[in-house]
């Protein structure tokens, strides 16, 4: 059976869905449970990566370095992993995370901006960390361009290359074309990160492994930005039947999701109107809650904000433009009134 490595990101992408409010006890309970289910990678940081705590992305209720230390105290086998987005987090931040127990890092850039990750990938390798190159918003580029960018990350020393459908926009065939091109062109393994905005996360993740990807991101209950990610316990059942081996404890994951994670959730992870629009318009998933807040503040339909963000080709991290768009829309509305 073909081996699949699962990266749990409940405590990172899932952090968006709880507005970065994880407590020490919550982190310990989830991390210990995941470790007991044999997860190889447990990713934990602010949703926007280390040092993402900010006005722009929302402040973490508990300092993320303290959360890392808490997780590290209960993990025996998994690699404690952090996300680092160059332009937000720095090599200095990564050193601080490593000092508190992180042993792996995923360095993420927009799909066309791989060269800004060189500094961080090289530094992480020198620090002895397991290092992943991570390209976001890959629906915006064709396979050839993604391969060219991925090869840069490979050349910097990445241990595997992950692509993210950050807007939950892609269909299984879009995933297949991208993964197959990468598997052909790169020496290192390929991974995939889905969002469920159009209900395609499990199908897309299955398409990814069937196309040769060997690393998959997933979260308990699918907790994550937008309509969430690939639901870990469901994915486990799917790939088990499809003939892949993850080494994970299927029942253990279901119990962990139901008994430990679900009580922490602020709302059930359904595909609401906003998420559907994210996927439809191709907008970065973590914009969702910020768009709803801006909609209320400015009295604007969040759908209009999302569509305009899509028109403007906003990329990950540009949460500040939500305010800008909402403000411009109110100006337009009041101009129309006269």
């Amino acid at each position, binding site marked *: 059976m073909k081996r699949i490595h699962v990266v749990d990101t409940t405590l990172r992408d899932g952090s968006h869905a709880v507005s970065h409010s994880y407590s020490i006890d919550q982190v310990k309970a989830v991390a210990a449970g995941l470790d007991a289910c044999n997860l190889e990678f447990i990713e934990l940081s602010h949703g926007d990566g280390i040092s993402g705590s900010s006005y722009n992305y929302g402040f973490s209720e508990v300092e993320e370095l303290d959360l890392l230390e808490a997780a590290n105290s209960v993990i025996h086998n998994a690699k404690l992993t952090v996300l680092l987005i160059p332009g937000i987090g720095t090599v200095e931040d990564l050193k601080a995370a490593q000092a508190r127990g992180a042993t792996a890092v995923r360095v993420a850039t*927009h799909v066309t901006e791989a060269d*800004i990750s060189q500094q961080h990938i090289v530094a992480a390798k020198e620090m002895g960390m397991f290092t992943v190159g991570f390209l976001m918003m890959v629906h915006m580029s064709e396979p050839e361009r993604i391969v060219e960018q991925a090869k840069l990350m490979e050349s910097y020393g990445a241990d595997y290359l992950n692509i993210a459908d950050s807007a939950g926009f892609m269909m299984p065939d879009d995933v297949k074309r991208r993964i197959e091109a990468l598997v052909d062109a790169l020496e290192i393994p390929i991974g995939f990160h889905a969002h469920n905005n159009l209900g395609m996360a499990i199908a897309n993740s299955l398409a990814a492994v069937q196309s040769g990807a060997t690393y998959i991101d997933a979260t308990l209950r699918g907790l994550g930005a937008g309509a969430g990610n690939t639901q870990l316990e469901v994915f486990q059942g799917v790939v088990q039947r499809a003939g892949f081996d993850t080494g994970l404890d299927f029942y253990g994951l279901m119990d962990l999701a139901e008994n430990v994670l679900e009580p922490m959730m602020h709302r059930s992870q359904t595909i609401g109107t906003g998420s559907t629009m994210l996927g439809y318009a191709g907008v970065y998933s973590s914009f969702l809650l910020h768009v709803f807040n801006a909609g209320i503040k400015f009295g604007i339909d969040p759908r209009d904000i999302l569509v305009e963000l899509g028109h403007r080709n906003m990329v990950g991290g540009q949460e500040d433009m939500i*305010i*800008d768009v909402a403000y411009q829309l109110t100006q337009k509305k009041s101009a129309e009134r006269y």
Partner: protein
Amino acid sequence: MSKVKVAIIGPGNIGSDLMFKIFRSENLEMALMAGIRESDNIIRVREMGVPVTIDGVHGVLAHGDIRIVFDATSAASHLDHAPLLKEAGIVAFDLTPAAVGPYLIPAVNMIDLKHEMNVNMVTCGGQATIPIVYAVTRVAGGKYAEIVACISSYSAGPGTRANIDEFTETTAKAIVDVGGADRGKAIIILNPADPPLIMTNTIYVQIKDTSVGLDAITASVNEMVADLQSYVPGFQLRVPPMLEGDKVTVSVQVEGAGDYLPTYSGNLDIINAAAISAAEIIAADILREE
């Protein structure tokens, strides 16, 4: 009227844009472009009738009449150039991240740094946002300030890309040192949209004194925007100050003058325009003394 002779070290994009700005100046004379090899840019500058040297900083020192230098090379090179320029009594505007001298944001601290022999121009994002941070903190104080700079991928050069941490760290430091906030944070986003987006920045300040009210903050910000427009005409408010609790949010855009670089490169335009505007003041003083 006589002019002050200036040199640019580094004939790349930044250096070329600086040169075109100097052509328009009343006080500055484009006396020398210095490179380190016979590059296409050096050849082009020579063909325009501007004196050139390929002897780098040594060519500048050998010239004898240069009073002001713009260093648009790299941090490592500027560390070598700085002591030589200082010894020769030449004022240096450092457009690299070397930061040998204090940070200069002309609209904020030109008066304090008028007699410095070496000033650092912070970062493009810093030039576009720190004046607004300061405009808020000068009336309401600042516990914390955060800026998000979004620039077009097409106007982020290889130097910026290879060391993006330098941008976030330097800008964050200058938010505190020059912007007047107790703590600072900077975020930079590169957006590859085509046609390219104009540089857009958002500034958040957690103020100390909410009793001053939004009107006083807005007045201070508007005054600063007018000051900035005197040297960067394309500087504009996108979202005027908003006050929620103790958080002030402002968004601005910077459209470049298009001297040499495209207008969407407002980031490069503003750092160059800031350096030139400061050099104009220093040159005016030199001319007055003579």
